[in-house]
Structure formats: C-alpha cells, structure tokens
C-alpha cells in the first residue's frame, strides 16, 4: 500500500529549509509509519531536490513524524528559481512511498 493510504502530510518552509510532517490517520498505524518512513528513505526519495541533511523528529502524542530537510529550497524561498519556490508540493510526493501492508497491525472491527 501507499503511505497516502494511512497518513497525511503538510510541507512548511523557512529560508532554505523544508519540513514535511507525516501524520497517521489512525494513531494505531503510527508504529508502522515510524518503522518504514526513515530519514534515509526520505533523503533517497528527494535526492534530486534536497542537498543537505534530513533529520527526523518523532511526535508519538499525535502519531506523527516531522522531517527537516536542509538545502532543500533552491538556496531559499526568496531567491529560488523553482516554480514551487516554497517546496509546497513535496508533501504529496512523499505520500507516494510504498509501505508493506503485511506489517499493518490487526485491528478490531
């Protein structure tokens, strides 16, 4: 399944730094997201866009991860040549990650 099936996301910008949240629709899916959406995987996915380090913060109380990506906005929102200077569209690209459905916890119906 896709990450988009179990999580939602929003991108923010500050200077040349982009942050992307990944939030479980159902907090029961948070451990699955935590296990499979790693900083390395995000850095690999965005290797053409993000040139600096990617740091992941966990916020289990809301079932969310926050990725902070440096050198991600073409030198900074205010001088970037990119069409999407703010990198606002990055969140949607991240949600296309493949997540193994077999790892999903069994839930009561």
């Amino acid at each position: 399944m896709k990450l988009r099936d179990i999580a939602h996301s929003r991108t923010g910008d500050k200077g040349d730094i982009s942050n992307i949240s990944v939030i479980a629709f159902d907090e029961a899916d948070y451990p699955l997201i935590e296990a499979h959406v790693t900083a390395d995987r995000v850095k690999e996915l965005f290797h053409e866009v993000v040139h600096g380090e990617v740091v992941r913060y966990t916020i289990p109380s809301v079932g969310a991860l926050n990725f902070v990506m440096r050198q991600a906005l073409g030198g900074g929102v205010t001088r970037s040549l990119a069409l999407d200077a703010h990198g606002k569209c990055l969140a949607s690209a991240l949600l296309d990650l493949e997540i193994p459905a077999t790892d999903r916890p069994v839930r009561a119906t």
Partner: protein
Amino acid sequence: MKTIRIGSGAGYSGDRIEPAVELAEQGDIQYLVFECLAERTIAIAQGAKLKDPAQGYDPLLAERMLAVLRPCHAKGIRIVTNMGAANPAAAAARTREIARSLGLGGLKIAAVSGDDVLETLKSGDHRIEETGEPVSAMAGKLVSANAYLGAAPIVAALKAGADIVITGRVADPALFLAPQIFEFGWSMEDWDRLGKGTVVGHLLECAGQVTGGYFADPGVKDVADLARLGFPIAEVGEDGSAVITKVAGSGGAVTTATCKEQLLYEIHDPAAYLTPDVVADFSQVRFVQEGPDRVRVTGATGRQRPGTLKVSVGYIDSFIGEGQISYAGPGALARGRLALEIVRERLALTGVATTELRFDLIGVDSIHGGALSTAGGQEPYEVRVRVVGRTGSLKEAQRIGNEVETLYTNGPASGGGATKSAKDVVAMLSALLPRELAKPAIEFMEA
C-alpha cells in the same frame, strides 16, 4: 474560570476578508488578530516607504479596517495586527482616518515600532547566520533588518487601553499570545503558560489552514464548503487550556487531523520552537475532538526564552528573467524538449550572462525533477516550456524571456501563449541579535 475567545482574521497579506467580518459579527470574540507579514514583505514595504514616507504598510490595511472596524467597535472587539509592516505609525494614522470617516470616535490606536534594527546591525559586530559573513560586508546591498519582537509591547499597548494595536515585525504567535498574557495577567516568565499560549498562536496564525484550508485531497481527505471557509477561533482559559473552533455554519472543518497538520507546519524540532517570548515545547501535545468543529489542545509547555532575537535581513540579491511557452497535441512533449534545447543553445550563442539556469517542462518535470516525475508512461497532452535564470542586471534578465518568446517564429511548430518577465530579487537572510539591542516603542493616537 475566566476564558476569552480570539479570532484569526488573516493568515497572510492577501487573505480573504469576509471570514474576518464573519468572525467580528458572529464569532462572539473579544480579539481579532490579523497576521499579514511573510518573510520578504517588510523588505519590499521598506522600498515603498523610501519612495513615500506615508506608505510601507500592508496594501489591504484600509480595505480590512473598512470592513471590520464598525462591527468590532459595536461589540468592543480589540484588533491586533502586524499590518504595520515597515511603517506602523503610518498604518495607525490611516486607520484613524478610516475610523473617523466611519464616525467611530474615541478609538485608541497604538503603533508598535522598534523592530527596525538595520542601523544597529550595520554598526555592530554581527554575522549572517546562513553564511557566517559579517553583516557589515553586505552594507551596500542591505535593504532592511527587522527583529522579531515578542508579546511585551503589545501587552503594554493593551494595558494602556488600546483598541487597535498595529505592529511591524513581531513573532506571529506573539500577536495571539499578547491578549492572553494581558487578560489573564500571566507573568512574562511563566514558561509553561507562555508555551501553552504559543501553541494556540501557532495553530491560529495561518487562519484557514487549521479550519480545513490547505487540507482537502478529494476521496482521501474531503472538506465541505471550501468556498466559504471559516477562520478559526481559540477559546482560551486562564490556566492555558484551549479549544480550537470556528463560526457555526461557516465552511471547512476543525478536526484533530486539521489541527495536527497545522501543529507541525513550519516547525523544526517540536520540543524547541524558538520564539522571542518562550522556547515552546509541542512534543507532548494531544488533540481531542470534543464536538463538531471543536478540538481541545493539551500538553504544550515551554522553557526560558532565548537570549537573542531573530532578525530578518533583506538584501538586493540578483535579477531573475523568465520565459514560458506552450505546446499541445500529438508530439507536444518532443516539441517542448526541442524548444528547451534551442533556448539553451541560444543563451550560450548570444552570451547571456547567468549564474544559474533552469529548464523546466511544466506538466512533466518542473516541480520535483526527472527522477520523481514518472508520468506513468503516458505522454501529456500539453506541456509548457519554462526557462528561468539568475543574472546581475535587469537588462540581462530580460534577454532570457526574449529568447523564449522568439520561439514563436524561430522554434518548433505550434508554440503558443508565450509570456516573459524580469524582476529584481530582494532576498532574505537572518542574524541573531542580543535582545536588549532591540528597543520597542509605542505611539498612541485617538480617532
């Protein structure tokens, strides 16, 4: 327990105005806050002020004040806003004029200044955070330097009886924190409550982004009635407890999901959200849906504020020239690619001096580059060529758009809809300033 209701009337300078009127008329609020300053806004406004000393504030200030002053006056709602941009005093004077024209006498208006630290920054030994370069080395290029002030001067203005407080650069959450500090008599060192008040400010500062705006994804995350999206209200208690809600019957939705997206918006370390008033900690925040469009937020806290203030430094960076043209129908992709190759060669042949160049095909790979943009094997019906470059002069920047435009008669078949532009770029960097070097000042006027 005493509670107050704070409404958020704008999430950015160009935001919709009707939701603010709706809040003033039907929101049962005591405060209406307008957050209207993006990173670069003040630097651009500084240019307007240099041309005309009566300008340099938010271009929609008059329209907003005309729309909300009467209902706010009738209901005793106080207004807090950073629409002063580079010229809070001129914004206050204009607001006084509007109040008088509406026959609203006796309104007390405060202009908070002191965020402009350009001279201080130039004269001292300060460095640019991103580059490590001394600020003094950029002297000829500097346009503006504004420190992010905290809640204190707004609280002081409210204490002095201001009905309307107009600031320049102030940390966005501080606009919302100030009414809470003032109403509840919180100490400026009650880090836990300041942390709680800051999360409320952070959730509200982008207005519609917490009520279902910037959220909809049809079939996955649907939001009703976005064309009438309502703006948020925080219902805050003196112990720092808070509920996020909106006007009944307005469009959008307040859910735990909309609140979570906004909680992490433009946040780096959630345990250390730096503001001039407190280092807020959002890492233990929880949201509970208490009813339709009512979400309770708990668990925020904070610790001692930083010793420095962030300063946003505006400077003349470069010039950007751009051109676009479209191709459609069979073979559109190949014609678009040929067009890009022609422009690439033309820019080299004619010696256009650029320091950075980008060749995009909008509809194919312009947003995330080639590797991510696998179009599923199907060719797009239409593509839009986009060539953009950075130059050292406006004249050189114009040559880029010209080389795209000439594709009309010199490029591939059936190109249409060419556009071109060239502009100067005021870009932003940051610096840190010992907080005592920024000296907030308040000027009062009465309508």
